[in-house]
């Protein structure tokens, strides 16, 4: 069961943190194999940011994504650059307001969830920067790649102390949205 997940956007959106939390939920709380890798330039904010998580029930050889089964796009640049690398039938989450130019023809081959994620995060927690955790909630709710309890534990482990509750609120809002999105 090798599953590849791509998270992409720009620096500062929590792209890498979201990937770390997903990998941690799989590796530590689901006893699966997981590899998280990232690539970014020397700048810590504003540059293109990309992270990958490979999850499997057996040891993972090649650690990078070849054709992602799941992808998250938080920026136009990331969408334009990587959309066409995803597998046919992939589940894809798009930050609608930050990706104005889409490829409707290609999206027909995919299961696309496009929402104003930043706006929903802001409405839910008052903090737009919880958008990455909200997205993780939607992602896990829809794909069930790891259990909800596992991702909650991993969020608690990984977010700064004192922000656990606000992040869990964002995560659970994501679960709630996922329920409505399920076919």
């Amino acid at each position, binding site marked *: 069961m090798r599953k590849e997940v791509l998270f992409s956007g720009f620096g500062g959106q929590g792209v890498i943190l979201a990937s770390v939390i997903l990998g941690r939920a799989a590796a530590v709380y689901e006893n699966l194999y997981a590899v998280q890798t990232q690539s*970014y330039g020397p700048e810590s904010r504003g540059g293109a940011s990309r992270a990958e998580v490979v999850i499997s029930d057996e040891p993972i050889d090649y650690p*990078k994504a*070849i054709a992602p089964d799941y992808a998250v796009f938080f920026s136009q640049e990331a969408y334009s650059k990587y959309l066409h690398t995803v597998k046919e039938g992939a589940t894809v989450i798009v930050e609608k307001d930050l990706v104005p130019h889409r490829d409707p023809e290609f999206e027909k081959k995919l299961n696309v969830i496009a929402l104003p994620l930043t706006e929903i995060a802001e409405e839910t927690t008052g903090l737009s920067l919880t958008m990455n955790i909200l997205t993780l909630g939607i992602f896990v709710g829809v794909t069930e790649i790891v259990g909800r309890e596992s991702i909650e534990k991993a969020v608690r482990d990984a977010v700064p102390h004192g922000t656990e509750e606000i992040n869990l609120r964002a995560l659970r809002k994501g679960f709630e949205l996922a329920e409505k999105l399920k076919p």
Partner: protein
Amino acid sequence: MKYPFPVGKSDFIQGDEAIARAAILAGCRFYAGYPITPASEIFEAMALYMPLVDGVSIQMEDEIGSIAAIIGASWAGTKAMTATSGPGFSLMQENLGYAVMTETPIVVVNMMRGGPSTGQPTFPAQGDMMQAIWGTHGDHMLIVLSPSTVQETFELTIRAFNLAEKYRTPVVILGDAELAHMRERVYIPNPDEIEVVYRKLPANEEEAKLPFGDPHGDGVPPMPIFGKGYRTYVTGLTHDESGHPRTVEPEVHQKLIGRIFRKILGHKDEIISYETFELDDAEIAIVTTGIVSRSAIRAVKMLRERGVKAGLLKLNTIWPFDFGMIEELAERVRKIYVPEMNMGQLYHLVREGANGKAEVELISKIGGEVHTPMEIVKRVVG
């Protein structure tokens, strides 16, 4: 002993973090370094953990100072480590030779990035293999280890300390930027689950007077601790068994350097480690080390699905090198491929080992991306 991280359970951590935790479990209590991408997280972890285990982590003025400090710490009886990347590793070469000549157990980590010079700070490469083996001047011998997963990075770091202590030698760990920042599940063992080796100390005054002798016939002299009662002379100049400079007698130099080579090469079967995958009936062999091995494992699976009898030899130690093992391999396969993230380094060692018994082809890739399995498959099937 209470550790500043959970033991006896799995965690999801970066290669850099795994090195720091393994070092502490191996008994390292002194770290000196200078920050550099992609090895800075090792320093960050050491700065956090060392005070909690009664150790010391210190930032030096540069990488020359860093390796000098760990050599000093080691002579004071403490297991010591530094970590860097290409530019810093270049600066360390002089003192790496000093550690070889003074037979000082130290661990030097180089998380390789694209070079030469400052190159590609955030991208992985394997361009420092020859430098790790031959970078310092003069006839020298040391040990170079090369992991491919975060778990292996953890385990080989413990092994690096054990080998350094056992053979009184510097040990280099060659990782890369991918492994440095990659997170994977790692089992962090309880201290009683791991073997930890400590250097031989002089058993008596006689042994202490000859810190560069060979009282046990294994080529490894017991190492006195500075400040523990013996007058010990340590120099990079050619020295006799007592440690005093003797620079004009050929036989003194021959004896010293001969023993430094012998203590490693005489135990090479114990030092060298490797793994094979589908190699027994292979007609095509792939020889790799480090992160690329993972692409090669996948490539072997893909080649087997296509009916190509491919197999992998993955080297966990790249120095000393088992040339004889490569020759035996070359005798029973049609061709050997060497994928590596440089313009051809391991390739030269493999070709020397193959000794013309099989064709050896380099699959070179530079620029900051690990070979994809398909890139290897395509080269093999043409």
